[in-house]
């Protein structure tokens, strides 16, 4: 266990920004803390690095209790959203900084800097000042600077937040490669679920200071334990339903209940279904998955490789319009136009205990 957080609590005045967070992260894992802005995810990262004090709880790194230690003694590498390079030092000197304060011999420092410049793909740019580097290059230097003293954990606070989409993609890719090559335990904080999916071994969902749930990207996407998670990760269609026996009732329509939802017996539930799990067809028999009745296409928008449609269910009263993703082929076979009536099937869905929002 490289990182172990026990019941972290942080309050600012009367506001609890980190509320009893416990978490264990394995050696070599890339863990993503995902949450909306202001959810407290950055505060957790800063607590681990010792940059923010905590009110109660403990932090262990590599089995060493560092709760009372200063940032200097914790052996973490930290990367900030705004790069925060030392403006008066060139790229090489920035990377060298951590080695210099540790009084590493000159030769060793130079070798390490050259090695890191190669690793981040900025070979030969060591003499550039931060102002002469692009945002993406600056963040690469910041990453190298954090890695230089060989920290036991790498902490990244929204590292790609200030970069444009294309650079962001490239940097994510490099980060994943470097992280796997070095096998360094890493926590990355982001509000971008796409980023989380692409990078994470596991994701932790933070909402208002609480660590709601932890899981692999697929687990959290397909079988979330909280409605918040379902809505936060991509688009979710949510219908009010009731589970009785082996059947789920959505209004008058009945569907076979997923077997893993046995614990939700005889109670009101939310039926959660992803847009890509909904099938539309012109004939009742052609619908794949469980039939949920008829619907009327109310809107179709082009979304690149797929098309996004909204469908108003006819046989289920008081249901919100469903979001559906359709392949071009499907659109052609349906001849889909707004106002058209179709049969709606659900291929895969998930149940969550009912909660008022």
């Amino acid at each position: 266990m490289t990182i172990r957080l026990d019941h972290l609590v942080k309050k600012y005045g009367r506001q609890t920004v980190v509320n009893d967070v416990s978490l264990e992260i394995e050696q070599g894992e890339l863990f993503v803390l995902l949450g909306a802005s202001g959810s407290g995810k950055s505060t957790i990262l800063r607590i681990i690095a010792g940059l923010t004090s905590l009110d109660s709880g403990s932090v262990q790194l590599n089995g060493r209790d560092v709760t009372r230690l200063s940032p200097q003694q914790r052996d973490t590498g930290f990367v900030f959203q705004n790069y925060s390079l030392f403006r008066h030092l060139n790229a090489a000197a920035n990377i060298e900084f951590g080695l210099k304060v540790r009084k590493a011999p000159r030769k060793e420092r130079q070798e390490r800097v050259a090695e890191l410049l190669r690793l981040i793909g900025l070979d030969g740019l060591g003499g550039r000042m931060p102002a002469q580097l692009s945002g993406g290059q600056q963040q690469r230097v910041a990453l190298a600077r954090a890695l230089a003293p060989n920290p036991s954990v790498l902490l990244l606070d929204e590292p790609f937040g200030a970069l444009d989409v294309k650079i962001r993609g490239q940097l994510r890719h490099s980060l994943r490669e470097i992280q796997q090559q070095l096998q360094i335990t890493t926590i990355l904080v982001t509000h971008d679920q796409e980023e989380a999916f692409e990078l994470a071994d596991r994701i932790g969902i933070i909402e208002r200071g609480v660590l709601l749930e932890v899981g692999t990207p697929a687990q959290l996407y397909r079988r979330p334990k909280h409605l918040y998670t379902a809505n936060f990760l991509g688009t979710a269609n949510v219908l009010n339903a009731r589970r009785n026996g082996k059947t789920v009732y959505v209004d008058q329509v009945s569907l076979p209940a997923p077997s893993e939802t046995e614990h939700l017996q005889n109670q009101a539930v939310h039926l959660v279904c992803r847009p890509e799990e909904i099938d539309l067809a012109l004939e009742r028999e052609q619908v794949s998955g469980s039939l949920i009745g008829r619907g009327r296409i109310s809107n179709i928008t082009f979304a690149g490789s797929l098309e996004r449609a909204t469908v108003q269910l006819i046989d289920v009263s008081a249901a919100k319009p469903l979001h559906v993703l359709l392949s071009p082929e499907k659109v052609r076979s349906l001849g889909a136009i707004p106002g058209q009536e179709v049969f709606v099937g659900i291929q895969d869905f998930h149940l969550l205990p009912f909660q008022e929002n």
Partner: protein
Amino acid sequence: MTVKAWSKGGPMVRPTFFPTIAWGKWSLRFLAVSYLFLLIAVPIIVVSYKGFEQGLTVFWESINNRIAYSALKLSLRTSATAAVINTIMGTLTAYVLVKYRFPGKAIFNAFIDLPFALPTLVTGVMLVLLYGPQTIVGSFIEENTGHRILFAPPGIMLALLFVGYPFVIRTVQPVLMQLDLNQEEAAQTLGASNWETFWRIIFPAIRPAIIAGALLSFARGLGEFGSIIIVAGNIPMKSQTATVYIYAKVESGNMQAASGISLVLLAVAFTITVSIDFLRGRKHA
């Protein structure tokens, strides 16, 4: 609107090709430049003329006599010493004001600007009341150390410390406030102690501001008159600074001698302002 005015109110709006806006621009420039010229350049020219009117030898004699030389030396020495102390204490004060919270901070912060606004004669009066030979503090120091504060160089130092104190603080403080806090945090996670973080990260960032503040404080000291005439008196070779010397020469009607020393002070002031400009320019580059 402009077009209407040019067309003399007729119903036909005739397009005009007179470059009205350019005229405005040029007249603005002309106004600004000639104002600067009349206000600053002309007096400088006049004083330079007066200084060199009777030839280089006379100019040289006006500054190279024992009394003038000693006054100039006293001014430079006290101003430089005061600037050094003000720079160290001012940087420290600015750092504390930006980085720490303490009770009464807002009031303290407001008080710093007082020497900017206070008539320096008032400063002189306050110092006399505090350190004068008849006062408790003044007589205590004189009896125990044998040194006089007032009517002597230490009194001048005190006055210059007082009037120059805000300069370094007010140049360094805004730069410190704009400093990216994450840079300091990055240094700390990389293992740098607070002391190393200051010397390696914060200090290089605020160094131009510190130097600018020091130069301003020095220039202020060199030009100080009001408080010095009160606390230092006007004892040639002992407590007569350059400005007081000039005053004495003007009083006795010797404008040539006054112009000579004035030119020296002018040259120093000019060097300082150019240096500060250079520092600012480099910072924005």
